[in-house]
């Protein structure tokens, strides 16, 4: 980029920063970095710069690159949730495009800083992932690239199965309780101090393991898998920790993109743009916000909802004034409150109204024969289905039911069926990977077409059977 343009952009970013501040946005300091497109695809493919190597990242890189090369899609911006935040701009974007992106980024960073669900995010994740990558390289050196890759293949296939709310976890049951039950600590000499007293019978402890169904499959394997070596457990922990970093972003995708789109539009209107620039902005803005037949475009839907909230709290209806005591003119304050306390699920549940579903023309579709057909337009059904698809990030909810199944340390998993069946082919293959990590037979209980079914993988030399539906009704 020519020095003059760089100066222009730098000025622009400073102006945008000031406007954002005046409007109440409160981001971390942001460092912008201009990068060529190849670097942009790479960061997009890895999720974060400097993450560990794996061929799936290479595939993502190739896909993104191909889409860009064919002009199908383009990554405008990439922002990293750290403090200070890092944002990457495309070198060959026009100055105006990068100004829009900068405004968009500032709103993202504001969201990262202020939304409740990001409260516990590791804000030095860039350092963490590069340390992790370094450790992984060390393991490759010590145990061979193939061993690490084989392990990562298995781990990445279950990386979604962690606990989204680690802070709600129960503390592990206390190991040693006072034998007398009076809360006094146990000492080595208890038996001597209480000679002659009859020792109470030891309480029969539940032999269940884990005591409660365990959602965090990754952690369970890292802690309890019988045969893993320390470095293999470490890799499990690494992938799990990185996944935890991405969780809040997955939980707030619609809100976060909606918030950023709302603000880039608002801020750009404050800038003194020429007519040509304004047309360029409008073209870019509508490109980002174009609706998608097969998905819910988070940029568009999120922004519409924020606009709607602001309007409704600025100009409440007569009824809302009376019943809910809304004063009017509270729109801005309200959207700032929403950006602080909601996530996508609560956001849609509370603010996706009938009028919005109709205006956005949202629908449900499904596969009938070989055609994808629209099957539902009722706003409540549409809203509830979108909400349901957010449960557990759209992933099947799977818990460890028994880590000592059949008293042979076999692993018994249970899919908490909520209406949608599993892809059995994939489930079988995934079980093989879990078997690789657990080194004992693994089972998965699920429901297929209304019937309880158990899929099993007992290893290559065991009974390597995925039990056909119906064979093991219990």
């Amino acid at each position, binding site marked *: 980029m020519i020095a003059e343009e760089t100066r222009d952009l730098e000025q622009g970013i400073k102006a945008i920063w000031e406007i954002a501040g005046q409007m109440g946005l409160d981001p971390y300091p942001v*460092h912008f970095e201009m990068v060529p497109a190849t670097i942009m695809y790479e960061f997009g493919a890895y999720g974060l710069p400097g993450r560990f190597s794996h*061929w799936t990242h290479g595939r993502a890189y190739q896909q993104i690159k191909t889409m860009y090369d064919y002009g199908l899609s383009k990554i405008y911006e990439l922002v990293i949730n750290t403090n200070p935040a890092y944002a990457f701009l495309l070198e060959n974007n026009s100055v105006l495009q990068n100004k829009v992106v900068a405004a968009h980024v500032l709103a993202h960073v504001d969201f990262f800083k202020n939304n409740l669900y990001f409260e516990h995010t590791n804000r030095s994740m860039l350092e963490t992932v590069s340390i992790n990558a370094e450790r992984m390289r060390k393991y490759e050196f010590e145990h061979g690239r193939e061993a690490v890759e084989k392990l990562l*293949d298995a781990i990445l296939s279950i990386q979604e199965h962690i606990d989204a709310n680690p802070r709600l976890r129960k503390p592990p049951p206390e190991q040693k309780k006072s034998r007398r039950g009076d809360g006094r600590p146990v000492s080595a000499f208890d038996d001597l101090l209480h000679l002659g007293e009859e020792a109470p019978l030891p309480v029969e402890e539940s032999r269940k393991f884990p005591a409660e169904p365990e959602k965090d499959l990754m952690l369970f394997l890292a802690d309890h898998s019988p045969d893993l070596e320390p470095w293999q457990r470490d890799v499990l922990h690494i992938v799990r920790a990185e996944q935890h970093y991405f969780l809040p972003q997955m939980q707030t995708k619609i809100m976060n993109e909606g918030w950023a789109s709302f603000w880039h539009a608002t801020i750009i209107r404050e800038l003194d743009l020429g007519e040509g620039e304004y047309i360029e902005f409008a073209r870019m803005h509508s490109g980002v916000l174009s*609706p998608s037949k097969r998905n819910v475009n988070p940029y568009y839907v999120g922004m519409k909802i924020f606009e709607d909230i602001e309007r409704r709290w600025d100009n409440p209806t007569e009824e809302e004034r009376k019943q809910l005591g809304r004063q009017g003119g509270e729109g801005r304050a309200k959207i700032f409150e929403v950006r602080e306390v909601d996530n996508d699920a609560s956001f849609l549940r509370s603010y996706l109204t009938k009028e919005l579903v109709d205006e956005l023309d949202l*629908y449900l579709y499904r596969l009938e024969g070989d055609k994808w057909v629209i099957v539902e337009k009722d706003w409540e059904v549409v809203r509830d289905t979108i909400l349901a698809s957010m449960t557990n990030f759209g992933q099947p909810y799977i818990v460890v039911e028994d880590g000592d199944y059949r008293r042979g340390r076999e692993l018994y998993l249970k899919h908490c069926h909520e209406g949608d069946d599993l892809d059995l082919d*994939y489930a079988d293959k995934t079980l093989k990977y879990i078997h690789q990590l657990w080194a004992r037979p693994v089972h998965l209980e699920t429901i297929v077409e209304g019937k309880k079914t158990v899929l099993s993988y007992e290893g290559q030399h065991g009974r390597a059977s995925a039990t056909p539906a119906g064979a093991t009704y219990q």
Partner: protein
Amino acid sequence: MLPTVSLSQNDWSLHRKGPIDQARHNERVKEAIKDSLGEIVSQESIITSDGKKIVKVPIRSLELPRFRFDRGRKNHAGQGQGDSKVGDVIGQEPGGQQGQGPGKGRQAGDVPGIDYYEAEITVDELAALLFEDLGLPFLRPKGHAIVESEDVRFDEVRKTGPMSNLDKRRTIRENLMRNAKAGRAGFGGLKNDDLRFKTWERHVREESNAVVIAMRDVSGSMGEFEKYITRSFYFWMVRFLRTRYTQVQIVFITHHTEAKEVDEDTFFNLGESGGTKVSSAYQLALDIANERYPASEWNTYPFHFSDGDNWGEVDNQRCLDLVKALLDRSNAFGYGEIQEGGRRSPSTLMSAFGQIRDPHFIGVTITRKEDVYPALKQFFSTRDEAGLAAVAR
């Protein structure tokens, strides 16, 4: 005080993490292709291509599996332009939703996701994978070599050459020696005279002459499947021979009740009707071999594909005699019988061949498309007389 913003631009040209993992992904694609060569080699799109073409081969094993919902039986949410209604068709399989990555960038939402990975590979690359461990069986040096295979080896050192071929070790040694002569110890003061370059030489390895006599049954009893299999087998055979040995000669013979020598194009495209007299082809093969390719100078490999529907016992007996005659002067004789779906017991022809105890006779039965690859491997495994003798003992 307000926190700050900053902007910078650095040189990223040495950053290559993405391409490195991409290369590893491509290796996995190759491995996956190799694992499913059996299914891939008999694909129609490949054997009808001209070789330069890029073909797409589906590989399923490359997707990292995970627990997921059966998307074909699930409702999904989408968005219309304001006029959508129940019953509207919005798309057709194959298609579906895009896998969601954790990145924060914008990705096109309408690009269909695929369950299998479609690898792109040229037929030549595919052939290279396929032929890695194939060779001509029972190859014996005979007569004057006109078959040669070329080899490039870096085993020369010269004083001039491209810098990329600089032999650093020798260059440093020359420099040290020169310095030593001048009474100085150590490395330094490099002169052009010190430079040594690795250079290559073309080694022409002389090999024996080989002729392949390809025979194909074009009679009416050969159905579409039989034609297809023959075609795909010969496609790879011809490709293989032309890749590995620059001057292998191939004679094409088609037959029904009569046999005739044809050119390559006719061989692959001809479809006729009529009865079958296999002996006619063997007789012609024997005649051509005796006439043009004397056994003292040529390794001969007759190959024949048929459905085994031969015309009567008499002809089968004649075939047997001719095969024995051919075997006497050939290195190996290949017979491939094609039976779709393995519908019958071996044909009378195959049964007759059952009497042949000669290990140079290689008979295979092909019942499915996937059998083409194992058949190729069986025909073109490099065997030699010594190995055979060891087995016999």
